[in-house]
């Protein structure tokens, strides 16, 4: 019993000390924060930056840009905070507490929210000052200006597109014709299933590929696809949109997808395709690098199959995907507006440079003058030829501006792939979600 007494009084004492300790902690913490804000330790200005840095790919970009920054702007020191995969929760919390990092990587949805709440700096003046517009590729200007004709972020990603990849060897070996119509698609499904090959792999646990997959079919009926729904230029109940949902339901029923597709992450779904266990795969054009590494020249992409031969030909060059305003933005409350804007634009330019010179991809927002170090993969060569002929693009899920529609289509498109969902439910859920 005495022991307990001791333990408890020790406990109470400890908690008091802890309270005192944490109070001390708070002081020192604040001091640090102040020195950061004041920012002239050894003549260097510290800027907080919120960026992707969680896998080989994004680390490559960031590290390259920071190394370049150290050469060009040695007076700046970046303090990185890793972007969390949390639907913008952390940035919104930061904004609510007035603690936004000086520079942050953002998409269109957060730009819209922060624009309304005056948390994001309008960059028009700096675009002029830095001549950023002249550095843009004319074809990618849509990634610079938002609907209100202002600039809120320096873009780098460019107009990316969704490709329907396929394994040429699997198609040849099994005598399957690369489908151009839904009928041929069904024939391909039957043929592959008979051989125990998964017809198509998709990482449907994430919702944006599901939206893209729906968009592939919707664009066969209306080239504006989900963009038209997003902007209110079309309704979910319009015949083409309902038919697109029905097309997917039919394909899924026929056995298009692997078991449990809606729980596959990228690593699992890509493994199926890369190892020749799945004949087709859906992803953005950035997949070219990984697929070429795994499959060499066996990998190709097909134009999306359409309901019939005529619409296939007519819409062949109507791609799903596309760019949207987004990239490196600057907090409205930063103490170093111009410097932060300069660094943000520099980072964006260097990201594009890295993509072109080291990642073998011409799809960026800004012109890159530096020599290419990693030659384009053959498939990228082909895409580069197709790019100028693309008649229309739509948007990735993250580029949708109507957030209600975005959340609704993300959920509903995934449900389409689950096999226990109808086109009618799809329309009803979209309409319910957009109310």
């Amino acid at each position: 019993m005495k022991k307990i007494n001791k333990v408890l009084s020790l406990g109470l004492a400890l908690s008091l000390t802890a309270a005192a300790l944490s109070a001390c902690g708070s002081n020192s913490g604040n001091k640090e924060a102040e020195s950061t804000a004041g920012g002239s330790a050894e003549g260097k200005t510290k800027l907080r930056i919120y960026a992707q840095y969680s896998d080989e790919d994004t680390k490559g970009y960031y590290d390259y840009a920071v190394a370049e920054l150290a050469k060009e702007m040695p007076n700046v020191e970046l303090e990185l905070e890793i972007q969390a995969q949390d639907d913008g929760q952390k940035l919104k919390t930061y904004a609510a507490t007035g603690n936004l990092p000086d520079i942050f990587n953002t998409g269109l949805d957060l730009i819209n929210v922060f624009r309304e709440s005056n948390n994001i700096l309008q960059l028009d003046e700096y675009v002029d000052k830095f001549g950023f517009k002249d550095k843009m590729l004319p074809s990618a200007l849509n990634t610079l200006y938002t609907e209100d004709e202002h600039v809120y972020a320096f873009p780098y990603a460019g107009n990316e597109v969704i490709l329907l990849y396929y394994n040429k060897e699997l198609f040849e070996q099994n005598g399957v014709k690369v489908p151009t119509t839904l009928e041929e698609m069904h024939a391909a499904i039957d043929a592959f299933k008979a051989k125990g090959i998964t017809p198509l792999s998709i990482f449907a646990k994430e919702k944006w590929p599901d939206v893209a997959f729906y968009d592939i079919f919707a664009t066969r009926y209306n080239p504006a696809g989900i963009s038209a729904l997003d902007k209110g230029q079309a309704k979910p109940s319009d015949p083409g949109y309902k038919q697109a949902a029905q097309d997917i339901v039919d394909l899924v029923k026929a056995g298009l997808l692997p078991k449990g597709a809606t729980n596959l992450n990228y690593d699992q779904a890509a493994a199926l395709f890369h190892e020749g266990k799945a004949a087709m795969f859906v992803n953005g054009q950035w997949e070219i690098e990984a697929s070429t590494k795994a499959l060499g020249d066996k990998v190709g992409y097909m134009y999306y199959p359409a309901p019939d031969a005529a619409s296939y030909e007519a819409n062949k060059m109507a791609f799903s995907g596309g760019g949207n305003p987004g990239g490196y933005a600057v907090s409205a409350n930063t103490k170093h507006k111009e410097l932060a804007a300069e660094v943000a634009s520099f980072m964006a330019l260097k990201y594009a440079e890295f993509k072109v010179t080291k990642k073998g991809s011409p799809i960026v927002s800004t012109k890159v003058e530096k020599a290419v170090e990693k030659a384009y993969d053959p498939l990228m060569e082909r895409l580069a030829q197709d790019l100028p002929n693309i008649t229309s693009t739509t948007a990735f899920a993250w580029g949708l501006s109507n957030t209600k529609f975005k959340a609704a289509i993300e959920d509903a498109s995934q449900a389409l792939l689950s096999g226990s969902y109808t086109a009618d439910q799809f329309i009803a859920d979209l309409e319910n979600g957009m109310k």
Partner: protein
Amino acid sequence: MNKFLGNKTAILLFTLPTILLFSVIVMWPTLQVFYRSLYDWNGLTEGTFIGLDNYKRLFEDRLFYTSLKNGIIFAAVIAVLQIGIGTVLALTISNKMVRGRKFLRISYFIPVVLSVTVVCQLWLAMYNGEYGLINKVFEALGISYRQDWLSNGDTAIYAVAVVNAWQNMGYHFALLLAAANSIPEQYLEAAKIDGAEKWKAHWKVTIPLMSETYKFCLVLAITGGLNAFANMQIMTGGGPGTDTYTLTYMMYRSAFRVGEYGYGTTAAAFLIIECLIVTFAINRLVARERIVY
């Protein structure tokens, strides 16, 4: 006695720190949830007062009913499994005659010790339709059925609930074991009997003596189930489609994915009231009489 137990200084000293801390850190933000549920608000701007419009909209929203139903299923599954298995294991282990009881006791608690991320990753691998362990077991047993529970809209919520039930069973096991160990020896007739009679004695004597513990086990399981979030976030993302949404998940979707923070807090406000009612009912129905050893 009244003076002894009514010592005002002692009451203040014992009660006030908790009330103060709790009010500032938990209740103040919670009150804002209720307040903001009357607003059209994106979380950052001023917002517009719209009265009860959010509640009207909530009751017309199909997603709300899906979420509500899933919360109830989730709560029911985990309450039955956790408390049921927890009871059997705790009563067994409380008997000092059981062989290997130390090892068993530690083992049953291990899943609780692991983080929810680890456990969800494990079960994702188990449920996987292509490479999952469950289908391999079916194969080994010569059963031709192949499950795909997590991707099927009708079964997904149960599949996720089982994971939570399995992971947190240890909590209930530990609480019930502590309760069983607190019962003075003279009450433990069941310990002296064997076989089916033993469980009858437990049912009649031991379990009623532990009713105070069952009360908070029930509250823990049911409100935990209605509040479920982390399992969905990691395992299904609310999917397929919206089939594993709960009210917390719906709140998260509205507040962060859609940017309608005001509407999200409405779902949360409903959830808090729902849990309060459940807790109140449990308090009324279970262990009304104070049991004293």
